[in-house]
């Protein structure tokens, strides 16, 4: 095996194992930053030694054992300073002597450590940006350079963000645990928010020349799929996974031959990925089944959500997934169940009031009840100062005005939208539509 091949093999092993190794080490050291440093040292040791010794039969066990030996060395050195650590070092040493398979000491069959790692990486005490970077690093096994490339951010910025996040977690003594009780909902939504942020950063790139950065979508989907298996009783987790699967199913169809965006209703549905749609619909079913049975049956002991209300309601991710599913199920744009989409948006707006959701609802209303009804809603929204710089407002308004034959006004709105968007490709599309308003049909 050549040096490059070996290097790539080690990277692959790291990708598969790093989250579990770090999670196990965090449980032992009670410090996620230290745990990651130790795991990184083990990785470096592998890069040094494996070229000579070859890849061990069980590379994960090797990484874990190496990291753990370093932890013991470190604690021994610090033992004088801190009694607590001395105990810990002794515990570790005993563990090592009594348990023949080193890997099994860190074995985590039900994934509790991994779930703890998910929660600590996405702790609300950290900014969403830090949470995203830390999650990709600790859970996704990405290098700082890979994260920087994905977010189009300089590498030192990402490195700083990760260092600071780890320091914050240590300084604030954030416990390595799965939250229980009243905390659960907020903590889980913090996790879901981060995963969806990573997905969206990939799916609708907020800056730069590309509309989609598929690796970030894949990373987010993988995190979501892992989380869905760790917390199978959480309907919103399945809702988020469903939403991402269905949106990702359109990746192939939403970019034209020259990289221009293609709107949902203009997409060639034959290019939608049926496998991902099927997975998305299955995830919706899982969520729905949980909601339907949660009020009548006993819940599993690993269920971390608060006790269900008698009338279980669909959360925002599941509702958005249901909306995406309405499109996914329609074989032609004409077959779309617009009244159902309007009612889902109404439910969503009720749950999480937001002008952006109102805007989307307006688009659905225009399809269900015609452009004038929708324009009334949109013009009411135009007075909302929070949408001042939001390019989709004038973009939707322009489209409705165009449909009503008010081309002159439509053109102004398309141009306004073009001036507000950060994405080069989208700007071109909006300017093209503005130009098409110059010659109104008689």
């Amino acid at each position, binding site marked *: 095996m050549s040096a490059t091949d070996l290097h790539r093999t080690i990277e692959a092993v790291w990708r598969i194992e790093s989250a579990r190794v770090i999670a196990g080490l965090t449980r032992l050291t009670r410090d996620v930053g230290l745990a990651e440093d130790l795991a990184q040292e083990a990785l470096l040791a592998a890069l040094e030694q494996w070229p000579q010794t070859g890849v061990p039969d069980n590379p994960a066990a090797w990484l874990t054992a190496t990291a753990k030996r370093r932890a013991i060395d470190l604690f021994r050195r610090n033992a004088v300073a801190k009694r607590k650590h001395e105990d810990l070092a002794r515990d570790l040493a005993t563990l090592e002597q009594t348990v023949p398979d080193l890997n099994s000491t860190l074995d985590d069959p039900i994934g509790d450590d991994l779930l703890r790692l998910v929660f600590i990486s996405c702790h609300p005490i950290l900014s969403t940006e830090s949470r995203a970077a830390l999650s990709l690093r600790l859970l996704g096994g990405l290098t700082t350079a890979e994260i920087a490339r994905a977010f189009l951010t300089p590498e030192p910025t990402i490195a700083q963000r990760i260092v600071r996040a780890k320091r914050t977690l240590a300084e604030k003594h954030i416990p390595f645990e799965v939250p229980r009780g009243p905390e659960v909902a907020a903590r889980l939504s913090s996790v879901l928010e981060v995963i969806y942020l990573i997905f969206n950063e990939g799916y609708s790139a907020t800056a730069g020349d590309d509309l989609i950065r598929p690796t970030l979508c894949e990373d987010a989907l993988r*995190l979501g799929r*892992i989380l869905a298996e760790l917390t199978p009783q959480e309907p919103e987790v399945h809702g988020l996974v469903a939403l991402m699967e269905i949106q990702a199913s359109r990746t192939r169809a939403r970019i034209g031959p020259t990289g221009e965006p293609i709107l949902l209703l203009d997409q060639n549905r034959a290019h939608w990925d049926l*496998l991902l749609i099927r997975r998305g619909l299955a995830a919706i079913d899982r969520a729905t089944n949980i909601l339907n049975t949660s009020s009548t049956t006993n819940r599993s002991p690993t269920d971390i959500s608060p006790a269900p209300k008698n009338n279980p309601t669909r959360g925002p991710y599941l509702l958005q997934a249901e909306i995406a599913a309405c499109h996914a199920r329609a074989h032609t744009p004409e077959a779309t169940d617009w009244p159902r989409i309007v009612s889902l948006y109404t439910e969503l707006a009720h749950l999480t009031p937001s002008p952006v959701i109102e805007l989307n609802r307006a688009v659905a209303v225009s399809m269900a009840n015609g452009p004038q009804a929708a324009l009334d809603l949109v013009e009411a929204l135009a007075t909302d100062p929070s949408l001042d710089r939001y390019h989709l407002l004038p973009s939707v308004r322009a489209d409705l005005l165009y449909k009503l034959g008010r081309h002159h006004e439509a053109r102004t709105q398309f141009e306004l939208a073009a001036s507000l968007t950060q994405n080069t490709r989208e700007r071109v599309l909006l300017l093209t539509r503005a130009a098409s308003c110059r010659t109104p049909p008689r």
Partner: protein
Amino acid sequence: MRFMVIVKATPESEQECALPDPQGVADMNKSTDELIKAGVLLSYEGLHPSSKGARVHFSGKNRTVIDGPFAETKELVAGFMLWQVKSLEEAIEWVKRSPNCHAGESEVEIRQVFEPEDFAYGFSEEDIQQEKEIRAQLADQAAKK
């Protein structure tokens, strides 16, 4: 990136109504479970023996149907999985961890699936050249300011 992991047939898998070894099934389920938990496995299917299948041979305008079973067992497909991983090496690592459910020799083939980004959105050489020139001009103008 996605890979199709193709499980090749063996004399056992080619037998009709062959009862799978319970331990083999348990190992396979455990492995499948791990792949799902890791967010790697997207879908998987197992295939009936080739005796229940057929081939259609194309030759110009002619189509000839050949009924199974087919002789070259090692070249036949017994099942397949679709995985999402970061690299070929990651796929190889996962395959190496999979149980060997056959007493004798067996083989698994790993093939990368085409993704939209493999088609580079149809940028022509001229497009790329033009883009480079525009960028160079912009840089030039910025430098003169």
